[in-house]
């Protein structure tokens, strides 16, 4: 019946999530299509939490009140992360998926996701995509792009369709 050698062991699928609706869409889409019944993948949800210093760094290199702002930004980010993870867990529960690992890691999303792939020996990495155009992509950077090129496993980019035909 099963031809591949490691069919006993489940393959691991990592889904990278952030605060946006695109992520939620990506999780829902993936669960609907891959985990609907008898899932053959083990699921790992990874949230990359930007570190407080990098978030404040955007405001400008020299910011006098940086020291005061950092703890506030940090707790804010922690709250966001908790909310994202909670949301994700809820979606999993709704889909009757119990074999799931949820993790928030601090750092740049690109690296965090690629490292998560290594750590869990994932065979698929799923990311949403903001659908930025070429210009925004160049300025803001694209995590999905980076992952598609650098992750050592297959990458699935789930896009939220903008218009429904």
């Amino acid at each position, binding site marked *: 019946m099963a031809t591949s050698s490691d069919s006993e062991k489940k393959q691991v699928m990592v889904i990278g999530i952030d605060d946006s609706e695109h992520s939620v869409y990506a999780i829902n889409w993936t669960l609907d299509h891959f985990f609907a*019944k008898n899932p053959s993948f083990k699921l790992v949800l990874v949230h990359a939490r930007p570190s407080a210093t990098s978030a404040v760094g955007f405001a400008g290199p020299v910011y006098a009140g940086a020291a005061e702002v950092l703890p506030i930004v940090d707790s804010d980010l922690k709250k966001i992360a908790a909310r994202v993870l909670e949301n994700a867990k809820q979606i999993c529960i709704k889909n009757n998926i119990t074999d799931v690992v949820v993790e928030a890691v601090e750092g740049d999303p690109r690296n965090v996701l690629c490292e998560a792939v290594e750590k869990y020996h994932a065979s698929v990495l799923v990311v949403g995509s903001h659908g930025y155009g070429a210009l925004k992509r160049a300025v803001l950077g694209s995590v999905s792009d980076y992952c598609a090129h650098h992750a050592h496993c297959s990458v699935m980019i789930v896009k939220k369709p903008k218009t429904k035909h």
Partner: protein
Amino acid sequence: MEASGGGDVQVSGGAGERRMKMKVMVAIDESELSFHALKWALDNVLNTMATTATPDENIEGGGGGGMVFLVHIEPVFHHAVYPIGSAGAVYYPPSVVEGSVKKAQQEKSVSIVSRALHMCKDKQIKAQSVILNGDPREMICQAVEQMQVDLLIMGSRGLGKIKRTFLGSVSDYCAHHAKAPILIVKPQEEDHKKK
């Protein structure tokens, strides 16, 4: 074809039969990578769907259970003009050469597609193939849009950034421009170390 592919296991659990049938398209060319992608897709993606395909289920518009679309893009044969000779004389290949090149290309396409169809048949997954002409990038994206596929699967050579700029990358273009979720299957380098 034999009845009910895969296993006899009737999976009735889960959230009440909420399985989504997925229209999957796999882009193939002559490279081994795309066949690797197809194989990966057949093993991992379509086996969850294929077991639900009952023999008497009608295929309405290609959406019914465990169905895969294979798309192969034939590059357009340019009427190449070869400059030869120091005087800049040009050589137009005679039409008989064009004809035979076209024919060879068609034969190659057919063999690629039939090999892919064979792979699908081995796994007892229904497959439908489409051969299109033109620029691979655009044609794949167009096919995705027209057929409203749920997932596009492609292989990727894993070229570095620089090579990618020069040689271009079909998977890259499709990742950005295709209207559907895309799964890029990479060649497995460390297949044995994966535990």
